[in-house]
């Protein structure tokens, strides 16, 4: 049987439909659906339904929505879907920190079951025992994975989990009368922006530990900043660099000693499943992104779940309700003594909870560990290969990476002028997604790759081949990279001024129509 041996440089072109905006498809009189109607008997009895309405509340001018037939609406959005590169379609290793793994199709069929989709969150407990059971058993599994004692699945995303944890920190210190005093939260440089940002929302000052030359946060720095003003310490480990801080237990000990609470950003725990746990590292709380490590899809950016786990003593602060079981019946416990209150309506995003539950059930304990091992193997293979590409490097310690790495094109940019954004656009031409970095922008010309367990060696080789090709192009014909893409839905975006100039930006079609008369590529001069 044949087998591709040469890494493939794909002769790719993305679907390009040249599709107008939905508003441009407006045809007065057309319609996409008819909603269920009022029975004539009701109409006879009640009239048009508007008589009771105060005149000032009746809408006078109908919303200027487009009128489009069903087939045309469908065609429009289907075309847009083809113009979107879902992770099902590509070797999605370019979105580091996001654990873009295989989304099992069977789980998607499970969550389309009307026995889930048609449940109302206020149904009586007796009518949702199946769903409560799934939530409860996911809680049990999460406890095993983390060593924590209780989980809430209410936060709908990692950011909201971080916010909930910052809220718990505040509530906890508030409960002991230290709320005012403890006004600082310590984090590290290579942590996700939401760690600091959510703590700021909760009124905290942020102290950031800088990495040493090997990329590790310094214990000495921590010692310097920790004090009785320390409310908490939040960190990811490994951080965006993929570097695991082996002294983490010393960090949490120091913070604890100062009276602070340690919370662990495990949004991405892909390299750690069954390997090491939040508990042993001394954390009081942690969260997992079910849409990352636990194979729930990213859905263009949510809805999602940040599964929030706490040690026993923090249970009372959890956002409620949580699911409990008396061995037979499942119930919702709304009576958490010092709950921070809800962070997301109802029970979070139960579809995603069910997906994570199904994923764990399809792997078991050994399977989860296998995930971590292959994720780390894949990453180290990629790491090894990327460093060999001309102009690319992986700043900080040599080796010692777990599931991801933040790389740099610093050298290539210096030598050719081609930036990481140029590479990003050019990667599109080979059918690949590629991401640079979010704040803080410490690594110059960064790109962050995380191959997860889902990709084969052949997949990785294909991605590497594309990076290698682009590096070659950068050194030989840099404009080719700089003017990319050529095989995407659109060409290079030009006037960034459209995004930052209040006179030009247009967040909606109506704003656009007011500001521009842009046809055939001509922009109305202001």
């Amino acid at each position, binding site marked *: 049987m044949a087998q591709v041996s040469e890494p493939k440089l794909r002769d790719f072109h993305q679907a390009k439909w040249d599709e107008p905006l939905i508003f441009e498809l407006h045809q007065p009189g057309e319609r996409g659906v008819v909603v269920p109607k009022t029975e004539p*008997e009701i109409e006879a009895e009640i009239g048009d339904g508007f008589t009771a309405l105060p005149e000032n509340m009746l809408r006078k001018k109908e919303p200027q929505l487009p009128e489009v037939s069903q087939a045309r*609406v469908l065609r429009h959005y289907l075309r847009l879907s083809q113009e979107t590169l879902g992770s099902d379609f590509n070797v999605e290793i370019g979105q580091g920190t996001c654990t873009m793994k295989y989304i099992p199709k069977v789980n998607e069929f499970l969550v389309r079951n009307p026995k889930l989709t048609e449940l109302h969150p206020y149904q*009586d407990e007796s009518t949702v*025992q199946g769903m409560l059971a799934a939530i409860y058993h996911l809680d049990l599994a999460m406890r095993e994975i983390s060593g924590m004692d209780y989980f809430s699945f209410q936060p709908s995303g990692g950011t909201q989990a971080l916010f909930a944890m910052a809220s718990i920190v505040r509530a906890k210190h508030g409960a002991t009368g230290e709320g005012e005093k403890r006004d600082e939260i310590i984090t590290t440089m290579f942590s996700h922006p*939401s760690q600091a940002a959510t703590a700021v929302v909760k009124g905290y000052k942020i102290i950031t530990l800088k990495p040493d030359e090997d990329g590790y946060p310094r214990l000495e720095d921590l010692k310097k900043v920790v004090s009785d003003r320390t409310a908490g310490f939040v960190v990811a480990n490994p951080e965006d660099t993929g570097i695991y801080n082996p002294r983490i237990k010393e960090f949490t000990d120091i913070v604890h000693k100062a009276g602070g609470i340690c919370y662990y950003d495990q949004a991405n725990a892909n390299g750690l499943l069954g390997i090491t746990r939040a508990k042993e590292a001394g954390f009081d709380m942690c969260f997992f992104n079910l849409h990352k490590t636990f194979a729930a899809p990213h859905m263009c950016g949510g809805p999602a779940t940040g599964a929030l786990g706490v040690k026993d003593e923090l249970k009372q602060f959890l956002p409620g309700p949580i699911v409990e079981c008396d061995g037979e019946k499942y119930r919702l416990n709304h009576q958490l003594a010092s709950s921070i209150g809800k962070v997301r*309506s109802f029970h979070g995003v139960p579809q995603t909870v069910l997906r994570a539950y*199904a994923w764990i*059930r399809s792997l078991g304990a050994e399977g989860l560990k296998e995930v971590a091992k292959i994720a780390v193997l894949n990453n180290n293979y990629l790491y*090894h290969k990327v460093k060999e590409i001309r102009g690319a490097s992986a700043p900080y310690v040599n080796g010692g990476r777990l599931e991801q790495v933040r790389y740099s094109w610093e050298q290539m940019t210096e030598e050719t002028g081609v930036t990481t954004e140029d590479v990003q656009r050019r990667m599109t031409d080979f059918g690949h997604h590629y991401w640079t970095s979010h704040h803080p922008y410490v690594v110059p010309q960064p790109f962050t790759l995380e191959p997860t367990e889902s990709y*084969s060696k052949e997949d990785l080789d294909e991605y590497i081949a594309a990076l290698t090709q682009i590096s070659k192009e950068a050194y030989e014909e840099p404009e080719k990279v700089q003017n990319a893409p050529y095989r995407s839905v659109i060409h290079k975006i030009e006037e960034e001024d459209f995004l930052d100039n209040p006179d030009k930006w247009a967040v909606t079609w109506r704003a656009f129509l007011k500001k521009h008369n842009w046809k055939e590529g001509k922009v109305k001069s202001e």
Partner: protein
Amino acid sequence: MAIEKQIAHPYIPNTVPEVQEEMLREIGAESIEELFEGIPESLRFRGKMDLPQPLTEYRLRQHVETLLNKNKSCNETVSFLGAGCWQHFVPAVCDEINQRSEFLTAYAGEPYEDFGRYQALFEYQSLVAELVDMDVVNVPTFDWAQAAATSLRMACRMTERNEVLLPKTIDPDKYSMIKNYCSPEINCTLVNYDGISGQIDMDDLEEKISTKTAAVYFENPSFLGFIEEKGSAISELAHQFGAISVVGVDPSSLGVLEPPSHYGADIVCGELQPLGMHMNYGGGQAGFIATRDEEKFIKEYPSRLFGIVPTVKGEYGFGDVAYERTSFHDRVNGKESVGTQTALWGITAGVYLSLLGPHGMRELGQTIMQKSQYAMKRLSMIEGVTASRFNSTNFKEFVVDFNGTGKKVEDIHQALREKDIFGGKDLSSTFPELGQCGLYCITEIHTKDDIDRLVKEIESCTKKKSQGKDDKHGAS
């Protein structure tokens, strides 16, 4: 170690030993174990996680379906639950689009390879903008509560004040979320409502508002289902004090109700779930925020805002407007925080609005008004039952007052459940001042039969039981 004998797990291609060896050779490592050397032994978990044995796909499916079969869903019964999550007609096209592999599995792509996602979300923003008649709408937030909380924080930043007023009829759960999101820096104060009409008590509002007030927040329809009629007066009052008028809205009403921007709202927020999302046990929620197209508003959004930008060939391109606001750009000084929100529901809401168009939205609103008025009328004919408890006009939801029946809502609902009817949300613990009341919801999906059945069963269970009661206690 492979999961079953030497066989690769379907989800993990490189379980194959030969491939592993080849990769390790490349890396120059002896074993995978070696790659974990950076984690000190003291932190290594050497136990075995206590998890059930793995299931093959078929058995997994059987197992989960068996679990789910223990649920009783709202389309196997007739449900009158609302209270922030509503059973509406979801067009099949909405499901088709949000189940598309491309949209389902895309994430943080760039406007090039994820062009379709950008266009779809830009269209979503634009469509909601028409509905609320404002020029700026964000990429969706977690839910209405989050949208409201963020709207209030935006107002505080804009006014550099830290007090906000909200109506006492607000959903207590939503309020708990807002309060937590605002604390410790912002003070939330509740404004009383009129006992007869439910409307905001203007006297109390006037008393509580001041030049420290950053925002006045109210909802239309209110949580208790009635339409807040004095929107203009409230907004004017807010403006008089230099405060911002923030209005939360159920968009399914906007085909027939005036959008808040027409009665003075500066910031409009609300819940997208009615626009094409299944209830999903509460997983269908997503929030939106809308404002005028003024720099001072735009700069305060924490959310992503997709804007149009041309390409070198004059194509429509899309990008992030004023990205520097976001915490992605500056994690300490950015506006609040942003992360994974509810983008797929935004796209879906766009599909929904494209399908319904202006006529569909109008018919939707009208149908809901007609049917809910019919239900109130019929319910009120039951002895001891009043619907609505308040004498304002309602949209979609209304408070059914059972106090006159001498029954507990809880018991009535238990009786209804036995007839495969889910009664509305029991308000007796969250709004104790109302006594035995329930918040009932009627949407376009309800039929006359559904309503008549409800009326009949309430009639019979309130009657029957009071007879039982009479029997026990003798004649009263």
